[in-house]
């Protein structure tokens, strides 16, 4: 290999080029400064930890969505999957603490199964994932309403809810450590490791050029299906945390799919696949959550929030979308 010309440090280049995390970090810092000015107390460790804990579900969803998006697909079903999971959990546990762990396992299996079905329909039947997961979204919402006669039943006992609601208290320095944050940290680390592994690299390659990947021995359909399964699992964990955080309701997952996709794109990941990092995706989700908190702190009128949100998303994506000129 011969170097044609030396260029600026490899790391900086990697961060700066499209798909790098620098833009989202910059946006995050700006928002943090704005929050700090308005609500200095928010940055105190205990409150920051709580914030991170409550943001864990959407961050995990973004990570799950990232796997699917970077492999060149979409998962529009995650929001409805979260709702279904929460409703199913409440009905199966029915306030009986002893059933917590079996149901948690069942939810994980259910999430993986939905991901598997999404993946197989997309890869084996060749239905575009936008349509597969849109159909799955309709099916899950319809089925869960049908199954519960339109009103969630049962209830989630404290044992189940503590994952999303409670924290390890009196931690030195940090004050408190929400269980959700612990789950997030562990899973985020796993996600990063996974993306650095052979699986992660081939996943990105599949998103970039599936034909080449196939001809290089990558089991393309299995890889993509695995991405959907990861997304389903992420939705299951998010559902466990969300159900814990706020209890059972049909609204539990409403709109989360768009939130997750927006977060992923904010994080510099390219829709269509082949580019972007999982860290960026998770930072994108954190940024969105921070934006909502910011609007609470600045008292942006409830009705105007969507406008502010829309404007900021467009602005942020526009900034991070600046690519090298193609001509």
């Amino acid at each position, binding site marked *: 290999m011969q170097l044609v010309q030396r260029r600026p440090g490899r790391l900086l280049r990697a961060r700066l080029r499209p798909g790098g995390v620098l833009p989202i970090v910059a946006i995050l810092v700006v928002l943090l400064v704005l929050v700090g000015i308005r609500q200095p107390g928010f940055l105190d460790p205990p409150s920051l930890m709580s914030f991170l804990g409550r943001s864990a579900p959407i961050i995990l969803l973004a990570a799950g969505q990232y796997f699917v998006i970077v492999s060149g697909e979409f998962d529009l079903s995650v929001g409805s999957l979260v709702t279904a999971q929460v409703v199913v959990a409440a009905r199966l546990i029915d306030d009986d603490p002893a059933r917590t762990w079996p149901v948690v396992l069942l939810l994980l299996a259910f999430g993986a199964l939905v991901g598997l079905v999404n993946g197989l329909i997309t890869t084996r039947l060749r239905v575009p994932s*936008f349509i597969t997961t849109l159909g799955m979204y309709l099916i899950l919402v319809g089925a869960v309403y049908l199954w519960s006669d339109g009103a969630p039943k049962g209830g989630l006992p404290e044992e189940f809810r503590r994952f999303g609601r409670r924290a390890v208290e009196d931690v030195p320095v940090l004050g408190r450590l929400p269980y959700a944050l612990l789950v997030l940290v562990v899973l985020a680390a796993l996600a990063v490791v996974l993306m650095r592994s052979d699986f992660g690299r081939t996943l990105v390659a599949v998103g970039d050029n599936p034909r080449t990947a196939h001809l290089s021995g990558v089991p393309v359909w299995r890889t993509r299906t695995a991405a959907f399964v990861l997304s389903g699992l992420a939705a299951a964990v998010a559902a466990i945390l969300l159900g814990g955080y706020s209890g059972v309701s049909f609204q539990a997952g409403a709109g989360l799919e768009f939130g997750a996709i927006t977060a992923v794109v904010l994080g510099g990941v390219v829709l269509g696949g082949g580019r972007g990092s999982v860290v960026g995706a998770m930072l994108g989700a954190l940024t969105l959550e921070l934006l909502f908190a910011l609007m609470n702190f600045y008292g942006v009128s409830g009705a105007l929030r969507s406008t502010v949100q829309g404007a900021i998303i467009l602005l942020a994506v526009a900034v991070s979308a*600046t690519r090298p000129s193609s001509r």
Partner: protein
Amino acid sequence: MRGLSLSPARRAVPGVFVALALTLAVGWLVVLADGGQLFNQSTTVSLLHVAAGLGLVAVGQTLVILGGSLDLSVAYVISLSTLVAAETMNGSDGALLPAVGLALAVSAAVGLLNGLLVTRVRINAFIATLGVGLLLKGYLDSFYDGPAGSTSPGLVQSLGYQRVGPVPLSFLLLLAVTGAAWFALSRTRFGHHLVAVGGDPEVARLSGVRNDRVLVTAHVLCSLCAGLAGIYLASRLGSGAPRVGTEGLYDLESIAAVVIGGTALAGGRGGVVGTVGGVLLLASIDAIFNQLEVDAFFKQVIRGVIIIAAVAVYARRALRKAAA
């Protein structure tokens, strides 16, 4: 080899019409067995009305999807258009034309914004139109507590409720718009260029197509169609309704109709005729389930299955064709 026979590029009747015919036949039988009538006048009229609303949006959506783009803001454009139209008319026939013009102009402006964000600012269409949708949602939420304005009686009587036999005027409008779109796609440079941009933007660009212009135009046309759907809904509802677009799920349903109609989500292949088939298929399923009083949630499950299955069938056929 060189002399191998090549089939000319057929633009065959999309398979969705086969599905439609089957659905109607089976539905007719089942409803009959249930003691009802699928094709009585009131049911047919209702079906065509549902199809007209969704159809207008879906035809516009077809244009952007063909060009490789997407519009998730249509639902909000529809709501906005009902309000602009109804508030400008304010119950008087005199203001009818200016109101329609203004509603369309506002819609076109949104389309222009979408188009510019996608082409000039180079934001992915999914995010760009989602973002514009949020902007509009904020506006609607802050300025409208509920229905506002009043549609001119003339429009209500004509576009809203007039019909020729069992065929509502609005459905004829849909057919006209579809015809125009079909014509534009197959007989104008814009149409050829749009399909090219959707097929491979780089090829189009290097062939001298002005991709940006073509896509912006498609977005404007899509929004105009959504605006037209809004005007139609205003004529049905008698007033402007700030949430009618989102409640109707016009964003996702229009995309579903386009894809069921055989247009590739990635762009470059398909057409508006199939889309109308897709719309009619969705509306027929609705009508049949309505007759059978099928639970709305069960219906949703079935709808999900049908959307996936229909597209799976296309994919299968495409695979076979590629293999043949």
